[in-house]
């Protein structure tokens, strides 16, 4: 199977500041891939580059086997993105926003309306017909952004912090859909700080540290079978232990707290 994502020596600089430095990464197709790192490590910048939002300073990106560049319109049609900032148009109603997204990704009017209705019901947002997105709660906004990312059945789905602010039932539904997507041979690339979720949902993980340097990548399915992850000659029984080892444990003491 063609790798879903191939990144070769990706560097992204903002002026003098380096956000991502010489990152090389391969994401196999048909996997749920966890992209982890501490705050400010360059995860969102990397996703920005992988989705065509940001121009890399250096390096090459191939998505679904094709090189990604400014004019990759056809390639963008095969991708679904849920950005960290959600990217909602706040003055619209949820169904208007999803309909807009569906039409932009080439769905015909009838299919777009049917999918919007089905998605809103599945997301328990069916009764929000006259409510603007600006009036939605954080969790509801996240659900709408997730719906917008999947409405056109993308082959590759980018999810930046998809589970935060969503209630447990909503998270369970989303996880179930994500497993379904992967079972169909499509790929999910997600970032989150909830490592337990990554352990349970992802098969492959990459960990980066500031400024966007890859420090570990591998298969984590061994953890599911009661095994451990090896690094630097040490064994880690949880992803959290490995993550903290790689990114550094920080325990500051505040006497007054």
């Amino acid at each position, binding site marked *: 199977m063609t790798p879903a994502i191939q990144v070769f020596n990706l560097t992204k600089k903002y002026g003098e500041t380096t956000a991502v430095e010489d990152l090389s990464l391969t994401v196999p197709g048909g996997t749920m891939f966890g992209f982890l790192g501490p705050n400010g490590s360059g995860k969102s910048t990397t996703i920005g580059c992988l*989705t*065509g*939002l*940001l*121009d890399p300073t250096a390096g090459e990106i191939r998505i679904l086997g094709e090189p990604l560049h*400014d*004019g990759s*319109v*056809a390639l*963008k*049609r095969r*991708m679904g*993105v849920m*950005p960290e*900032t*959600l*990217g*909602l*148009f*706040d*003055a*619209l*109603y949820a*169904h*208007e926003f999803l*309909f*807009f997204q569906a*039409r*932009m*990704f*080439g769905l015909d009017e009838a299919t777009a*309306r049917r999918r*919007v*209705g089905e998605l*809103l019901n599945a997301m328990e947002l*069916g*009764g*929000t*017909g*006259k*409510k*603007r997105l*600006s*009036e939605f709660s954080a969790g509801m906004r996240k659900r709408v952004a997730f719906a917008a990312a999947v409405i056109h059945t993308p082959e590759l789905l980018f999810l930046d912090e998809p589970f935060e602010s969503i209630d447990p039932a909503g998270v369970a539904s989303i996880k179930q859909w994500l497993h379904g997507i992967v079972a169909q041979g499509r790929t999910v690339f997600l970032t989150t700080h909830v490592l337990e979720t990554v352990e349970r949902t992802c098969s492959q993980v990459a960990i980066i540290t500031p400024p966007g340097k890859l420090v570990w990548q591998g298969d984590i399915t061994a953890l599911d079978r009661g095994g451990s992850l090896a690094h630097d000659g040490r064994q880690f029984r949880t992803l959290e232990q490995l993550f903290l080892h790689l990114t550094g444990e920080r325990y500051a003491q505040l006497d007054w707290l």
Partner: protein
Amino acid sequence: MDSQLVFRLVGLRYKLLWAQTRTRNGRIALFMVGYASALLVLIAFTAGGYGAAMLAVRSGQAEMVARAVLGALFLNAIVASVVLGFGVNAAFSDAALRRFPLNPIERLAARHLTGILEPMWIIILGLDLGLSTGMYVFGAGGFWLGVVAVLLLVITDYLVARVLASLIEWLSRVRGGTAILGLMLLTVCILPSMLAPRMATAQGFIQRSMLALRFSPPFAAAALVVHPNKSSLIFNLGLMAEWIVFLLAALAMIERAAARPRNVAAAAIVWISGYDRVASIFGPAMAPLVARSLRYYSRSNKVRLNFSIALPVLAFVTLGRPLPGDPRHKFVVSLGAFAVVGFLATATMCTNQFGFDASGFRRYFLLPISPEAILRASSYTAVFVGCLLPPVALLLWLVLAPVPFDWRMAPMLAGSAVGGLLFFNALAIWTSLLAPRRTAFETTFGNQLSFSANVLLIGGILLMLGGATALDQMAGPEIVLQYWWVSIPAVLLAAGLYFFSLRRGAAVFIERRERLLNALEGRN
């Protein structure tokens, strides 16, 4: 009352203002130059008020001149705040202040202290103080009483502006409110000019008006500034206090009504496809983008408000002006008004086309389209929405304007409207790309435009209206009408500039997208 915390919030408002400007050296320079200029204007105007006081005392009409100066300043401040949005920026909403340990009275005080300490009100205070100090120096008034009088006058002025702004904001949000607002504005703008000739000849009208105006804040303040006797002092101080209490009560009532949450109870999806149908004329690729923009325009309180005020305000500044002699002078002056009418209605959005998208701006670049299409769709929508007003204006003008009909007037007015719309929208593309500003969609008041957009909006209006007046004075209606055909090449030129801006702007849009993204998502 925890005055320390309240004043800390006032300080925070200025720190935030500073934080917005300090991120780039150029902005710091602009900020410093702006404030230095404001200071110079303040000094100059204060001296002007001082000069007016000197004139007042020498002419022996101290109270009359004080009334005229204070009244004019009072009205100018209201126009500047209500029409142009200066001085009514709500730095902190009541909801935002609830995060701090403040009781309702302290929140009210913090909100209005930050409001009244906006630079514009300080300038107005400086002007008023110039007059009262001048009166004191030339022996026509007391110093401290003058200071108290102008302080009370500025407070009243601020409250009147706030009440009007809140009332208009509330009306623009309720069903049918925009129509009521339009009618009110039309009445306010047109009625005085229609009634003035008749009233001026009516017996005792001016005397009755002056008697009634004695109860207005500027006249009460003028009476306090100029040596009042004891009964006048008590009466006018009491009057000012009553005005302040009345305005505070009115403001509280309107704010309470406006704060009622919108009824957003569970409702099923209703597919309103009017927007999509209208947008479909732009072709299948562009239609979803245009439909999205149309929804933004139609749901924006600012755009709705500007739509309702554009015609009355322009009618007031053109048809409402006394232009003696040939009635066709009004036609020439109207050419300037027609050039800005469509732009004035949409300016708050079209000069900052992506400012209301906030994080939604990011989505444009995730869509499978060329960025050029985004800019085109956004600008086409602005032109389309702006095109809705000129036909109404033309029809009203042809039916109502007191000018003998000449067939050449219709194409000239239409050409001026279309040419002006394209010209201003061409420049609006550049302000949107080069000076974007993250803007709150839900607000109605407050001037949130960038410096460049303000220059385009205010400068453009002044240029067009002033240019038409100059043309009228230099050439006169007959010669202007002889050159009616000039409107055709003028429209073509404007169209050329517009399409050039779209084409060149698309390249700039792609090149600057990361900077735009940072600005619109609140990172500098």
